[in-house]
Every structure is written in C-alpha cells, then in structure tokens.
C-alpha cells in the first residue's frame, strides 16, 4: 500500500509538469489545446533517442522541452495566423505529430533500459520535488512580469489588452508554446523514469491534464496564480493516488483507466455548473420574495444607489 502511494507521488510529480502546461492553455489562455497528446510523446521520443545515442540525459530533457516549444508554436500559428479554430488547430498538430514522433524515434518503442538517465545517479524522490518547485517558481515569476501579465490578459480580456498595445497573436503563440514545452519535458522525464518511450504514450494526456487541473482547483482552491499552480501540482498527485487506488479494485483492468479518467473529468466539470445553477435559482427565488414583500409595504424604493 505504502509502496503504491509513494509510486503515485512520484508519478504525480512527473506528470505535474504536463498538468501545468494544460493549466497555461486551458485556464490562462482559455485555449483548449489538444496538441498535448502529441507533444508529450515528442518529448519522450526526443529524450529517448538522444539518450540512446549517448547524449547527456539533462541535455536530452532540455532538447525535449525545445521540441515541445516548437510544436506549440505550430499550433499557435495555425490558430492565430491561419485563423483555424483552437480545438481543430490542436487536433491537426496532434495528428501531424504522430508521424513526426515516429520519424524521431524510427520505431514505435525505444527502450532506455541500462541507459543513464536523470534518475540514474540521484533518486527521483530528490530530483523531482526540486525540479517541480524550481519550475513553479520560474513560471510564477514569469506570469508576474509585464509580458506575463499581457499573456494572462490575453485569455481574460483580449480586446482590452490589444487596446493597450499587446499583440495577442504573439502572446497566444508564446503561451501555447510554453505550455507544450512543459508537456514535452514531462514526457521526457516520464520516459526516463519508466525506461522507455512509446509512440502511444501521449494518448489521453490532455484529459489527464484537465483532470489534474480540475481536481487540484476543486480540492486545494484557486484564489490567485501562485495558489492555483500549486493546486494543479497537488491535483496531479491526487489524480495518481486515485488511479493507484482504482487499480487495487479487483474487477478493474489497467485498460479501464482512461474510462475512469474520463468519468472523473465529467463529474468535475458537470458538478460545479449544476451546483451553481441550483444556487442561483434558489437565490433568485429568495430575493424575489424578499423584494416583493418589501415593495408590497412601500410604493417606491431606490435600489442600489450608492456608488
């Protein structure tokens, strides 16, 4: 039990970088980016191929990050310059990346057994927390710079930030690129930890990323950017714990995981909306009754008034 919990913690940290990428596109840019399924594999593939060719695993991870940046730039350009719908841009890139990933790896599966990885010399339980905290710090610092504010405003009110002179095409491309860089880095680390890169390792990644973001925000809150990014990392860990627990249920198969993930995301998406609608309805009903009883006793009344 403890073993599987520790395993979940480790996996959660590895996948949290991918979740942070999904957070940047889905929450900050309001751009549902499906490139993730492809760029995760791109990251894993680049790292695996470079490591098997004898390159330093850190350099290989950095190159994987770069590969993700490039994939993101392509998606961003398709959307902003090609005027293609955001979802469709992501799907197009996801499909294109399948072929590209195959070209990178040359075969559907590249083994890293016996190769030296970033986790060979130092245990993942030491490397990953440091890496995740460092990336959290850098990301939060970036999101508080002038450029970072423009990026956030692009998703919050694009018309407003354009009127203050930001090129929202550029900020969108930048954001999608950065997000996919993190996703690819996550793929590179997952490949090194699991000992192989596989052409299908990215399938369903976007939904897992969404699940982590939504679970994290629901359990740990999301008052501001720092708070939310930490919540997202914790959400990725909780997701892995839920998966580990689900796998202990006897009649569930490993292949049921994607269905479980989909159901978690559906519940997490539907529940808050339904709850909010119900609350709004109750509030409207109560206020209507209050106001009509007040209006019944007096003929006129100023509502609001003060600035």
């Amino acid at each position: 039990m403890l073993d599987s919990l520790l395993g979940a913690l480790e996996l959660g940290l590895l996948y949290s970088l991918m979740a942070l990428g999904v957070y940047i596109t889905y929450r900050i840019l309001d751009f549902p980016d499906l490139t993730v399924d492809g760029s995760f594999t791109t990251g894993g593939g680049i790292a695996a191929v470079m490591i098997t060719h004898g390159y330093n695993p850190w350099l290989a991870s950095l190159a994987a990050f770069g590969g993700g940046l490039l994939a993101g730039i392509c998606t961003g350009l398709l959307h902003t310059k090609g005027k293609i719908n955001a979802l469709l841009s992501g799907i197009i890139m996801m499909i294109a990346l399948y072929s590209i990933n195959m070209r990178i790896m040359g075969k559907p599966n590249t083994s890293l057994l016996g190769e030296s990885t970033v986790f060979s010399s130092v245990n993942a339980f030491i490397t990953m927390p440091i890496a995740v905290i460092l990336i959290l710090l850098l990301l939060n610092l970036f999101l508080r710079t002038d450029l970072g504010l423009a990026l956030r405003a692009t998703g919050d009110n694009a018309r407003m930030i354009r009127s203050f002179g930001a090129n929202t095409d550029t900020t969108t491309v930048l954001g999608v690129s950065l997000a996919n860089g993190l996703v690819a880095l996550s793929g590179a680390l997952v490949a090194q930890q699991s000992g192989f890169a596989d052409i299908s390792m990215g399938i369903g990644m976007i939904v897992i990323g969404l699940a982590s973001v939504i679970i994290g925000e629901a359990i740990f809150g999301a008052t501001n950017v720092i708070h939310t990014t930490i919540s997202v990392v914790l959400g990725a860990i909780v997701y892995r714990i839920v998966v580990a627990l689900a796998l202990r249920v006897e009649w569930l198969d490993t292949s049921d995981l994607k269905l479980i993930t989909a159901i978690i995301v559906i519940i997490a998406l539907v529940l808050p909306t339904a709850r909010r609608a119900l609350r709004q309805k109750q509030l409207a009903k109560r206020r209507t009754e209050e106001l009509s009883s007040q209006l019944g006793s007096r003929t006129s009344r100023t509502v609001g008034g003060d600035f």
Partner: protein
Amino acid sequence: MLELSRVSKLFNPGTPDEKIALHDISLKLNPGDFVTVIGSNGAGKSTLMNIISGVMKPDAGEVRIEGAVISQLPEFRRSRWIGRVFQDPMAGTAPHMTIEENLAMAYTRGKQRGLGLSIKSGRRAMFKEELSKLGIGLEGRLRAKVGLLSGGERQALSLLMATFTKPQILLLDEHTAALDPARAELITRLTDRIVRELNLTTLMVTHNMEQAIRLGNRLIMMDKGRIILDINEQRKKTLTVEELLAEFEQISGHKLSDDRVVLG
C-alpha cells in the same frame, strides 16, 4: 493632432446587406480639442471610433496622428497614441486580474513588454496616488480582483487606465451609456475633470444630448455615415437641446431616431 481625410468604409461589400458605414469623412482635431459626437442609430459613430483605433481599416482615405499616417497600422501598434474607454464596463478591464495588475498593463501601454516585474514598489505607490484621485476608495483595494467591482467602479478604473499615461488621443465610446444615472453622472464629472487637467485631445460619442452640449469645446453630428453638422465653441455655449434636435431635423430631413437617446 488627429486628422481624418476622406475616409470611407463599406460594410458587407457585394452582399444584399451592403451598407455605407462612413462616407467621405474629413475631420481635424487640434491639440486639446474635446469633441462630442452625436447621431442616430447607424450614423457611423462607432465605426468612426473603430477606424481611428484600428479595430477596422478604412476602405478609402487616411488617418493621421501628429502627421504620421496610421490607417494601415494594426490596433495594437496604435495604442501608443490612443487611450480608449468602451461602452461595456466589462470591456476595458481584465476581471480575473487585480486592480494593480490592470493598472500595470495600462502603464505599459504601447511599450515593449519585457521580463521586468510588473508590480514594483515605485509603480504601486504611483497607482495608489492615481486611484485616490478618483475619490471612490479604490486605492485601498489594490489587490482586489477587478471582477468584484461594480460597473461604475470598473468604468472609473477603465477611465483612469486609459488616461493616466496621457495618450495623444482619448476615445470615449458611449462610456456612460451602460450605467445608471447616478453612476453615469459621476463618470461624466470624472471625465470632464481628467480631460481638462491633462489637456487631452478627446473624441467622445454620446447618446446624451445634454452631455454632448455641456462637455467639450466642439460638437459634431453624424447621420448616415456623414458629418452633417460641426458646432464650434462659441455657438455651443448658448445651444439648447431643442435647438440641436431642430437643427438635426432640418439638415437630415428626419427626426433623430435612437431608442437610447437621452435628452438631458
């Protein structure tokens, strides 16, 4: 300062909905001019604003600011000269970001945005001082999310954000129309004060006839994509709403029809 020469704009060209939005408009604003714009629905007032700010590009004619032709520049490149307040209080601010973050974005209007920290102590003190000038207590809520403010507060903040960096041109597009009368009056007073203090060259579209006469030093009236009347400071001082409406009817041949017109 701002000069439009023979600007035309066609909507939906080549379709059954084809419409001349602006027809051969020429307009020159001198430094410090505060021009109010009135006109009926579809007169082209908003199109005029959009052509100047770069949301739309003219099909013919030129727009100049300080002599430089800007008609083909994209919207984001024109922001270094232009400050804008929209009709919708939600449009001018980013709701999920804090008041100080919104001000920081306004502060870097038209400049290259780099990797410097957006909120530094110097900037924060300046934001606080600017907010306190509004006199509605926002200076104590620097870290509140803008989405929590009322429509009036958001519009006051939008006005501050558009003006405190002293743009060459200030465009106000019916910026009090979506507010209740008390708040609209407060924003009107703030606008008048800020424009005077900073001596901003301003173009203000309004539905409020009384406001159009009371504010500014010049009034132009639009109808069917043309400027049909240009009233100078001297005449404006003695002008009444009735005279203005009568003049409109006489020139255009129809009544000023607008479901939102406020007479004063």
